């Protein structure tokens, strides 16, 4: 077991009056009955609070363990023979490795991750792509498919018309190709599975909620496709019949038409639009309740939401809670 020590001396009772966030917990409600507007004495708050919170939550600078057998992981630092937390979050232990996992953290890229990004900048022979990480990703001109699927070296003429492929603000789906020590990554779209995104809605969820799996692109009922990227960016779009998951390099020229870099959306009928909206609301509902986003959870939530034919009724928090309860059973 992890030796989580008693917090340092600054936790001792204090003369200072403390006002805290009027919270949802029962513990605080009991305190509020006695004290006006949440004005409570420091000692009382901490005694009550320490009983109620999870024991494995730590704040920056708090000693996690001074046991020398443990190794420090992410979210910790080593000082004076002890492992201290460097972020606020929950202590996690895998064998002898101790780490502190913050609830909301920036996406840390790994090679092979499917990610959705937004073009932030066009530079010579490369695009800078915002993928929600510490650094923008780099998409090299040599790492994309040319329209028509032509296999050749990229020339100066291609460099001059880079904005005809991707321009600032465009959304794309890609794969992480290389990871550099400074936190930046190189991505590529050298497959017909990847490329510019059209005919859909963009959503942003905490990356921690997206469960890494074999596939991150799913086709749901009602003619809706979703791409749950590992970096927490989600794309909900109209189902594409002509989506080729894998094409041999000899047939690439036939399959990769000029339309892969088109900015024009296809015609989307009303029924599909409603389904796209419904799936978007379902994903937002799952994310707002800190529930994991998987194909199964989204499908369950979607099916449970069909009780409400009017999408406005679906957005009511009480109804959302009811659906979440049903979907998670």
């Amino acid at each position, binding site marked *: 077991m992890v030796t989580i020590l008693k917090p340092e*001396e*600054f936790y001792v009772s204090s*003369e200072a009056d403390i006002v805290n*966030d009027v919270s949802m917990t029962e513990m605080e409600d009991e305190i509020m009955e006695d004290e006006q507007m949440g004005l409570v004495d420091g000692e009382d708050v901490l005694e009550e609070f320490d009983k109620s919170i999870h024991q494995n939550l730590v*704040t920056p600078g708090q000693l996690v363990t001074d046991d020398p057998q443990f190794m420090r992981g992410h979210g910790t630092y080593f000082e004076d023979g002890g492992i201290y937390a*460097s972020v*606020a*979050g929950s202590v996690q232990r895998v064998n002898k490795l101790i780490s502190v996992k913050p609830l909301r953290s920036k996406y840390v890229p790994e090679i092979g991750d499917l990610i959705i990004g937004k073009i932030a900048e066009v530079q010579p022979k490369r695009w*800078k792509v915002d993928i929600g990480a510490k650094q923008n990703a780099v998409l090299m001109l040599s790492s994309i498919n040319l329209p028509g699927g032509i296999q050749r070296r990229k020339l100066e003429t291609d460099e001059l018309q880079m904005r005809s492929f991707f321009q600032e603000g465009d959304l794309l789906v890609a794969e992480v190709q290389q990871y550099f020590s400074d936190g930046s990554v190189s991505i590529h779209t050298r497959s017909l599975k990847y490329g510019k995104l059209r005919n859909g809605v963009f959503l942003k969820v905490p990356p921690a909620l997206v469960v890494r799996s074999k596939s991150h692109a799913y086709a749901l009922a009602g003619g809706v496709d979703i791409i749950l990227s590992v970096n927490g960016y989600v794309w909900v779009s109209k189902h594409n019949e002509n989506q080729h998951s894998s094409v041999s390099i000899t047939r690439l020229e036939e399959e990769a038409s000029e339309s892969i870099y088109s900015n024009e959306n296809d015609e989307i009928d009303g029924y599909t639009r409603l389904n796209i909206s419904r799936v978007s609301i379902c994903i937002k509902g799952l994310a707002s309740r800190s529930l994991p986003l998987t194909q199964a959870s989204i499908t369950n939530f979607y099916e449970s939401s069909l009780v409400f034919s009017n999408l406005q009724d679906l957005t009511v928090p009480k109804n959302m809670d009811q659906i979440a309860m049903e979907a998670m059973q």
Partner: protein
Amino acid sequence: MSDRKRVYGPSVSVPPYFEEPEQPVFTRTRDVDRCRKIYLKLGWATKAVGSSYFESEKIKIACTVSGPRPSKTFAFRSSAKLNCEFRLSPFSTSVRQGHVQTVEEKSYSQMIEAAISPSILLHLYPKSSIDVYIQVIESDGALATLAAAISCASSAIADANIDCIDLVTGSSVLFNPNTDEYWIDPDYVDERARAAKGSVVMGYMASLGHVTQVWERGTCSPSRLSFLTEKCIKNAKDTRLVINHALLLEKSKSEDP
């Protein structure tokens, strides 16, 4: 010929009489050792990576943190650059301010940056920049506002989950160099009305017991400064209780589902 468009005053007029402004009344009801009550709310700004709202009676400060994000400059940096921007709202002080950042605000920005940068593990974020925006909605004494801004900025950084060795809490004390009088967490009336020409503002990391920055003004003996520093440290520890409580409450709330 008289000007028809001009409105002439009465032929007999008396200059207006203004009452003498009342001298400021000492409103301090708390002990000299006691700081003001604090309210802290984290994560109020959904678009920002981290945010905090700090309220201490009349002092109201909102802070947001952006980053770590790619640095705008092309020069390579082995560690992140911390940028602080401290701004007073035009209506925050008794004398209305302009919108343009003043020299005083810029110096406060540098002071806050100096106070909180030792706590952040900047080397973990190469080629990046971390931007801290502090907006004072209402101010009640320059010293206490600066101390509150330090605490608010540090709690916003913790909310942004940026790696730091500890949280920095600010503390301020006003003292009279000629007597043994001192006032912890002085408000505007204390600063204006008391015969005090000395002050100490401090940034303190309560968990590690490190002082990040001290600004002292006025004549003060080493023993007196040591005593005042101890008072500041005690006050900073009390503030740290609030930040810890708010942080853990935020995390436990989020973990419940």
